Every structure is written in structure tokens, then in C-alpha cells.
């Protein structure tokens, strides 16, 4: 995984432009925001003079919400299936949200009329259309904004976790590189000592080697084999939730939530009075949230409780005063509980989104900083490099040294000169420890060396070759195939203008099943052909 990502969360404009992305019409947030609020208001406002039974409203709302949910689901499925990368323009986001809301308002009104045996309970459905469209706007747009912010936060957080692990690995790596240099230094010094000091006690070579292996090489290889354990958790919704209930909600967002109640308000109090009711509750809620925010600061569980409590109280009192909520019987409690739930529910979602936004920005700053500190940006590459060095230490270096010890124990005589030779070779090996990444020329040299004596590999026009690890892999695979399947012992690799031609002197293309080579080819470029060669053998042509 690389930590290079150009996508950033920089501004409010960015958020607006992403409203129509996959986070739009999220079924999850439809459930969290839109469904409860619609349901709640049917309970609160059922028992008013126009409707005899609030259960009509519950059932009607459930019906209309199900229809809307079905529509949203179908849009979403088609969207993901056919045009995954499509982004709805902002205007269409507004239009779709408003029409879905209006449709829901109209559907609810129709359902109530049906349920109450044809008696007209409402002054008309046009009010439901207007109220519903405003509620739809607020509900769908805020839900998709929250969804988008969550997904951004998740991405940034994962990126940050990778960058931190990378940073740790990098630090560990530079320490190990120093130890490698020190190891080589020790060996070189010991060789000098073996050469110069005639009086060195017999067997010193072997005890030095044993000590070197036990105290330095084994621990170093072990340390290089071990991976960095990630102590950083990635995306945690719970963490956001806890933070959200510990901070007073945003005044603007909480105030706008009450607009979700607009269709019911208009239906019961008439067009103008309904709008007035809704706006007055919104303004009061706004003022309460602002004042509490000032008094209690950004982080306060009491502040959160107080805003929700006072807002609920204000909402219910204002509604009761206007006669929208029936003060008699248990309905006042139903009203209090449902309005409380509406505010608590949406303020938590909004606060979580806001915190996600802020954290994502802070994460981004840290990522940028880490990326500047790190030299290479591929975690996989760094890990691979360390594994190669560790393999070499553990495998070749250690085995060669131990073979001297084993031979001596088996009865062979190890003299000073043999020890010097072997140690010098080890020092050379440490010098040629795998480098950060191989160039194409180096990789091709490896391939040539691997087949020396079995297949002769010649390269033409390397200066025209693009520098890419994939090209190196394709060549390695092609030589293998030419030898193994084509039974060739001569392969010519030539880089021509925009294409790579790999020709061999084998038996020509066979109808064998596609192997790893073609998999690599197909994943990188579809543009390749395997043809019979002009002078026998086969010719693989790949567009670069």
C-alpha cells in the first residue's frame, strides 16, 4: 500500500461537490435520519382535530417510507451496477431530494385519506407536497453529507495508520542498516587480525564465527523478519459516537433539523402558520444551542444534554401553545419523547460528521508531514527489501559461516586461510545486500544470470526501455516460458518504438494453457500477441 493520495478533504466546497457521489441516497442514513423523524411526527401530531386516530398516521407513514426506501434502493442498485463513478450534479441532488420528500408527503396524505375511509382529513395535499419537499431536502442532503464525511474520515484514518506504520518501519530499518555496516566492519577487522597476528590462538576463527552468528547475525535477521505491529486502530465509529455525545451540537444543523417537521406542521396548522411554527422552533433551538455552546465550551457532556433537553422543551411548548400538540392525556409525553429523540438522534449524527471532518483534516496534515519525511512511498517495497536482506543474512551468510563450524565438528581441518577466504566472501555478500529497488537493467541482468548456460539471453535497445518493475517481470516470465514451453536456448529481447519484442529459437507457439506470464500481461496491457517467429521459434510482441 502506498501512502500517496492526492484526494484531500480541504473545504466546504469540496463537501458540496461530493454530495452527489456514492454517499448520496445512502440507505443507512435514510434509516438513521429520515425514517425516525417521519415516524416520530406521525406519533406527535396524530391526535389533533383532523385525524381521529394517530395510528392512521403511523401506518400511513410506514407505508410511504417503505415506498421511498424501495425507490432509493432501486436507484442505488442501478447506480452501482451501471455507473459506479457517476456523480449527480448539485442541482439534481437538490431536485431529487425535494421530489422524493414531496412524493412522500403526498403519499402519506393519500394513505391517511384511504385509511380513514375516504374522509378528507387534510385541507389538501399541495401543502404536503411543499412541506415534504423541504423536509426531503434537509433529510437527504444532510444524510449524504454525513455519509460522505464518514467515508472520507475512514479513508484518511486508514492512510494515516499506514503512514505511521511505515514511519516506524523506516526508523527500524535505518537502525538495522547501521547494524549491518557495523557487522561488516567487525568482519573486516577480524580478517585483518587473522592476517597480521601470527600468535593468534588456534581455534580463534571458529569461536569468533560462533560468536558473530549467535550475538549479531541471528538477532539482526530475526529483527528484520519481524513485522511492525500496528498499534493504531483504524476507523472506529464508536470513538466518533462517544466524542459526539460529549460535545454540544452545532446550532445551525440542529435548528435546521426541525424543518423535517414542516409537512406535519403545514398539514395541521395551515400553510403560513405551519411555516411560522417551524421557523420559530428552529430559531429558538438555534439560540439555545449557541448559548449553551458558549457557556460550556466544545467538550461537555452536560452541554450536549442541556441543548437537547432545552430544545425539546422549546419545541413541545411552542407546539402546544399553537395548538398543534394536544396537551391532554398521554400525548404530551409522546410528543416530548419523539421530539427529544429527533434532536438527540440527528445531533449525534451531525456531531459525528463534524468530528469526522475535523479529524480527517488533522490526519491529512500528519500524513503530508510523514510523507515528506519518508524517502520511498511504498510500504510493500520497503518490507520486501528488508525481507530479502533478512533472508540473505539468515540463509546465505549464516549458513556459510556455520558450515565451517559443522565441517570442523565433522572432523575436517579448518585452517586460517580457509577462514579468511570464507570471511572475505561474507564481507562481499554484505556489501551487495539488496538495494532499495532494482533498475530495469539490474533486473534483466539477474534474469540473464539465472539462465546462464541454459538459455542465452540478449538485450537490444535497452536505452529505449521504460523504467518499470512490470516490464522486468514480463521479461523474466517470457524467458522462463521460452525455455520451459518453447524449448528455446536463445532469447532476444528488443525494445523498439513503443513495443517490446521477445523472440526465441524454440519450437514455436503451442496451444498450452495460459500461465502466470499471460496473467501478468493481461493485468498490465491487453495489447500483446504471441506469433510464430520469422525464422522459427516464437515472437511475443507487447505494446508499451
Amino acid at each position: 500500500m502506498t501512502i500517496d493520495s492526492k484526494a484531500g478533504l480541504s473545504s466546504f466546497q469540496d463537501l458540496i461537490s461530493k454530495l452527489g457521489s456514492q454517499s448520496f441516497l445512502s440507505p443507512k442514513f435514510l434509516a438513521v435520519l429520515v425514517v425516525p423523524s417521519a415516524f416520530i411526527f406521525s406519533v406527535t401530531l396524530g391526535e389533533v382535530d383532523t385525524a381521529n386516530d394517530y395510528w392512521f398516521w403511523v401506518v400511513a407513514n410506514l407505508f410511504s417510507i417503505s415506498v421511498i426506501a424501495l425507490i432509493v434502493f432501486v436507484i442505488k442498485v442501478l447506480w452501482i451496477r451501471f455507473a459506479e463513478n457517476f456523480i449527480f450534479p448539485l442541482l439534481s441532488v437538490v431536485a431529487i431530494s425535494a421530489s422524493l420528500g414531496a412524493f412522500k408527503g403526498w403519499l402519506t396524505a393519500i394513505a391517511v385519506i384511504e385509511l380513514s375511509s375516504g374522509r378528507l382529513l387534510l385541507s389538501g395535499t399541495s401543502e404536503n407536497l411543499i412541506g415534504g419537499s423541504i423536509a426531503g431536502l434537509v433529510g437527504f442532503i444532510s444524510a449524504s453529507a454525513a455519509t460522505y464525511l464518514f467515508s472520507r474520515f475512514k479513508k484518511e484514518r486508514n492512510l494515516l495508520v499506514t503512514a505511521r506504520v511505515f514511519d516506524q518501519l523506516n526508523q527500524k530499518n535505518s537502525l538495522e542498516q547501521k547494524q549491518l555496516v557495523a557487522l561488516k566492519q567487525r568482519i573486516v577487522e577480524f580478517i585483518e587480525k587473522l592476517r597480521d597476528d601470527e600468535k593468534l590462538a588456534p581455534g580463534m576463527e571458529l569461536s569468533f564465527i560462533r560468536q558473530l552468528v549467535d550475538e549479531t547475525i541471528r538477532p539482526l535477521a530475526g529483527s528484520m523478519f519481524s513485522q511492525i505491529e500496528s498499534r493504531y486502530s483504524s476507523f472506529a465509529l464508536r470513538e466518533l459516537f462517544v466524542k459526539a455525545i460529549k460535545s454540544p451540537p452545532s446550532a445551525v444543523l440542529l435548528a435546521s433539523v426541525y424543518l423535517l417537521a414542516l409537512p406535519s406542521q403545514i398539514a395541521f396548522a395551515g400553510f403560513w402558520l405551519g411555516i411560522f411554527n417551524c421557523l420559530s422552533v428552529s430559531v429558538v433551538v438555534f439560540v439555545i444551542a449557541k448559548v449553551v455552546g458558549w457557556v460550556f465550551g466544545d467538550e461537555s457532556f452536560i452541554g450536549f444534554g442541556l441543548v437537547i433537553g432545552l430544545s425539546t422543551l422549546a419545541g413541545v411548548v411552542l407546539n402546544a401553545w399553537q395548538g398543534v400538540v394536544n396537551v391532554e392525556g398521554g400525548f404530551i409525553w409522546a410528543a416530548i419523547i419523539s421530539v427529544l429523540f429527533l434532536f438527540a438522534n440527528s445531533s449525534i449524527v451531525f456531531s459525528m460528521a463534524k468530528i469526522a471532518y475535523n479529524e480527517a483534516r488533522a490526519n491529512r496534515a500528519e500524513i503530508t508531514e510523514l510523507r515528506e519525511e519518508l524517502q520511498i512511498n511504498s510500504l510493500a517495497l520497503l518490507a520486501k527489501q528488508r525481507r530479502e536482506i533478512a533472508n540473505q543474512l539468515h540463509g546465505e551468510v549464516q549458513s556459510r559461516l556455520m558450515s565451517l563450524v559443522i565441517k570442523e565438528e565433522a572432523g575436517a581441518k579448518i585452517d586460517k586461510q580457509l577462514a579468511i577466504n570464507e570471511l572475505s566472501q561474507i564481507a562481499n555478500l554484505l556489501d551487495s545486500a539488496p538495494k532499495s529497488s532494482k533498475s530495469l537493467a539490474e533486473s534483466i541482468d539477474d534474469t540473464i544470470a539465472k539462465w546462464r548456460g541454459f538459455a542465452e539471453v540478449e538485450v537490444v535497445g535497452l536505452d529505449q526501455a521504460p523504467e518499470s518493475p512490470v516490464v522486468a517481470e514480463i521479461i523474466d516470465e517470457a524467458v522462463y516460458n521460452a525455455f520451459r514451453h518453447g524449448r528455446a536456448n536463445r532469447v532476444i529481447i528488443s525494445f523498439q518504438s513503443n513495443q517490446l519484442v521477445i523472440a526465441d529459437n524454440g519450437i514455436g507457439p503451442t496451444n498450452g494453457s495460459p500461465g502466470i506470464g499471460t496473467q501478468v500481461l493481461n493485468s498490465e496491457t491487453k495489447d500483446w500477441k504471441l506469433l510464430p517467429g520469422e525464422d522459427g521459434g516464437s515472437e511475443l510482441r507487447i505494446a508499451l
Partner: protein
Amino acid sequence: MTAMKMRIGICEDDPFTLATLDASLVAKEVEVVFAETSAPNALEKFSELTPHAVLIDLHLGSGPTGLDLAKSLRGISPSVGLVFLTSFESPRLLDRNFEELPAGSQYLNKQELASVDQILHALQNSVSKNRKSTFVESSDVAGLTNRQLEVLEMIANGKSNQQIAKQLALSAKAVEGISLRIAKRLGTKNDQSGNQRIQMAKAYLRSIGRFDN
């Protein structure tokens, strides 16, 4: 064994095994003239030092195999003794196009090896006048067709029938048929003894020396 020390070469890609073999053969009074981890180096040393016999690991990493090396060695010296030391039950598991081992070569399975003397004995056999190849195809897995082997290898690598079908350009149904025939051949059953696919993968891994019971 004549009074003359036997001169041998070793090619084994795992450095530790190489060092151990080298040391234990030296202790048995064998002269090890080269001990190399790659086929090209072994080939080069062979032309230079011409040992009586060569001890070869079949699997030598991603380049030429031990079989490729053996053929080249016989090309240089038709009388050279060849001993294969391997964890593969059959050479076909390494190279599906494998036809037969070079005449008179000795085949030692690493898992069945109990002492250095066995290696020594094989080396002596490989250079004797009336040398006979010791390789007898006995592995269940080796009895499969090339296509079946290919599919089995993919199953052992955790691929689904669908993925295998895609890679081999076959229908999923054909792959299913092949995998059923493999199961029949290997005698794996789909009962309480365990998931059939896993049993098949185990049989494969066992045959290439990567799995013990």
C-alpha cells in the same frame, strides 16, 4: 569403493541444507569439489572440475530446474553419476512435461532419508557400471493427467472453481468435472473426515513435501 576418494559436486538452493550436506559428506571421506546454490554456477564448476557424480536438488528456485541441470551435465559428460535429492514425490510435480529421468539416476526423497549413508550409497550406485535408475512412479498425485495436475495445483493454492475456469479459459462446469475426477483418483471423500477440497490440497502439498500429517 576404490582407494581413490570419490569426487562429487552438490547443487542445492537452500544454503543451510547445502552446508549440512557438504559437511556431512566431507566427514564421510568424500571430496566435495563444488557446492553451489544455482544451476548456472554448478554447470560452470562442473565443466571445470568434472566430478564423478553430482547430488542435485530438483527444485532450484525460479530459473532452470535440477532436471534441466542434469540433462546439461549428461550432455557434457555422459558417464556422470546423478543423484536427485528432493521433497517432490515425482518429477512431474515440478515439470508437467517431464518425460523420464536420465538413465541410471538415483532418486532420493528427503522425507524418507534416514542417514548420510543412504546418500553415500546412492552416489556410489550412480557411478557403478551396471547402474539402474531407482525411480519408480508411486505417487498417487503423479498418476493424474497434466490438466488434472494443473487444476489440483490451483486448488491447493486456494483458487475457487470459478477462478480456475477463468484462468484456464474453461467453463466452470468443466473444472468441476476435472476436480471430481481428481478426487476419485486420490480417493478423497466428501464425508466427516473433512472438506474434500482441503483433503485434495493436503494430498498435493504432501506430494511436494510441504505438508506432514
